[in-house]
């Protein structure tokens, strides 16, 4: 198991799995706005993506880029008063049209795990109650049976003394243990899609590796499709087949995870990769992206959103909103991208020119 092939660092969920039949999730031209003080504020702009069966797609971006909101839209968890255009379909079904029991069974098909298990799990109910609640309520599984299944699932995420854990309360467990409980419980309904919103950000470094490892094993065993939200390109690459990079409420690049990191097409993806300090050597200077990330509401409709911070900016960048277009094996929303990829070196070169 040495020397993983370039492009498929894990050797997991190869294109064959996603190529069989139509994709599990299809998001098409999704735009979302919420009402703030009587005026509409744009949150997502024209987001289109697909997730194949058993495929892991990373959604990478900084705060306010819209990555969490995309996951919430897929799970029909947008805040009250949010306006949505475009469509989301799951296994061929229009998600927006689902109501009542159909919506509930859809949500059982789509499991969600959150960043901080401390606040995502009800603190006054026992672990057992939290884990078996959906089974008992929605599928009328008897408590004893549900508890047995919970214990088995806990064992699969590496918690051996499940029976004892079921009787404990969230505050009695460490963050890493609690996130495993969260993962185990989300898998009890046998979902086909896992929405993971920064599932390791609130955890300790060494725990993060364990949780990713568990997620990786489970997704392969269960054939789960995953939408993995993170701010860390490197983490996206270790876990996901493809990576989509979001900026100001829209997708600016999609492609093979390794390609997005090693040969990014969009200047923002390149900037993100270059801005991160490295653990293996000290850089004379970090290639920081100037300015601050724009939120979707601040972004222009008639120019490139990233242009003000971009080292490759030319006048044409301000003369129209770029479309997401195919380039090489990926997609990019930048008029300047093409020919050669914008590697870290190119960015440095242009910046100092």
């Amino acid at each position: 198991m040495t020397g993983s092939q370039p492009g498929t660092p894990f050797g997991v969920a190869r294109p064959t799995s996603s190529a069989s039949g139509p994709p599990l999730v299809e998001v098409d031209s999704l735009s979302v706005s919420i009402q703030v003080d009587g005026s509409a504020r744009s949150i997502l702009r024209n987001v289109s993506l697909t997730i194949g069966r058993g495929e892991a797609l990373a959604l990478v971006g900084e705060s306010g880029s819209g990555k969490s909101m995309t996951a919430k839209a897929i799970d029909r968890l947008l805040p009250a008063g949010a306006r949505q255009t475009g469509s989301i379909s799951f296994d061929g079904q229009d998600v927006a049209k689902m109501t009542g029991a159909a919506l509930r069974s859809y949500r059982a098909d789509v499991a969600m795990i959150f960043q901080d298990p401390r606040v995502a799990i009800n603190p006054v109910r026992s672990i057992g109650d939290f884990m078996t609640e959906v089974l008992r309520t929605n599928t009328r599984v008897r408590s004893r049976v549900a508890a047995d299944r919970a214990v088995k699932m806990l064992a699969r995420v590496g918690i051996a003394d499940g029976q004892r854990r079921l009787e404990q309360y969230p505050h009695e467990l460490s963050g890493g243990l609690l996130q495993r409980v969260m993962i185990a419980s989300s898998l009890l309904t046998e979902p086909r899609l896992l929405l993971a919103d920064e599932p390791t950000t609130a955890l300790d470094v060494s725990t993060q590796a364990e949780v990713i490892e568990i997620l990786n094993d489970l997704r392969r065993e269960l054939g789960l499709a995953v939408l993995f939200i993170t701010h860390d390109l490197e983490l996206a690459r270790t876990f996901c087949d493809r990576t989509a990079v979001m900026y100001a409420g829209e997708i600016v690049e999609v492609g093979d995870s390794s390609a997005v990191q090693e040969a990014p097409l969009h200047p923002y993806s390149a900037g993100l990769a270059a801005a991160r300090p490295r653990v293996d050597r000290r850089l004379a200077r970090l290639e920081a992206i100037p300015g601050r990330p724009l939120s979707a509401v601040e972004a222009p409709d008639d120019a490139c959103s990233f242009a003000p911070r971009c080292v490759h900016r030319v006048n044409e960048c301000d003369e129209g909103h770029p479309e997401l277009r195919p380039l090489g094996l990926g997609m990019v929303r930048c008029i300047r991208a093409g020919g050669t990829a914008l590697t870290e070196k190119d960015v440095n070169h242009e910046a100092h020119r």
Partner: protein
Amino acid sequence: MKLTDDLALEVSGLRKTYGSVVAVDDVSFAIRRGGSLGLVGESGSGKTTIAKIILGLESAAAGQVRACGRDRTAAARTLGERRRRAREVQIVFQDPHSSLDPRQTIGSMLEAVVRLHHRDLIAGERRQRVMDLLDMVGLHERHTAALPREMSGGQRQRAAIARALAAEPEVIVLDESVAALDVSIQAQVLNLLADLRERLSVTYLLISHDLAVVRQLTDTAVVMCQGQLVESGTTAQVLDDPQHIYTQRLRASVPGPTWVRRVSATPSILDEGGAS
């Protein structure tokens, strides 16, 4: 000149207990003037407790803390002593949102600190000093009138750094100061911190769980695990050739090419068959 005069901060035999729990157990390290030391550890390792003891927010059960050659282990009794200690060590916290007063403008916050430490300055000179501080951290003159909530996360953290600098301290404790920032902003602040150290010869004690940040900002590093110091050396040594098993584990947990192999080295049942 004695050897200790060259040390900005010196911690020796530090111990702290909460009831029967030993939070910090016989920890010693030192930072020379103008140096930068990374204090690495995960939650519960005792690194934040050490910061609190150095700042005088907690008292140690045993051991000694010296800054600029002066003992600061016992609580400061007088106002003058407290002010002197403030000029020795300042802190920048992780979350500027909760460490800045939400009702005070950045300008009046900085001016108050300047007034406290430079009583001889007249109003005009104080204002000039505030402007200099803002300039130093890359903020604009218009930010003097801004409230913390009107600024972005990166700007707030710059303001917090300016406040620490206002006391012209010898040592700044950076307690996970860049951990909550977005990647592109984090790089800006890390560059700023490196520049400031070069310009002002200020000493850093960086408390962090992020090994890449430690690499970028420090010369030497110590690693803590469950209250004990398990490894120390130059940052390059500690990160490139970790000796203690805990440091090795931490190092292997950083996402990266090495980590990919480690994670995928765990065989899975359906490794060959792929997903159905």
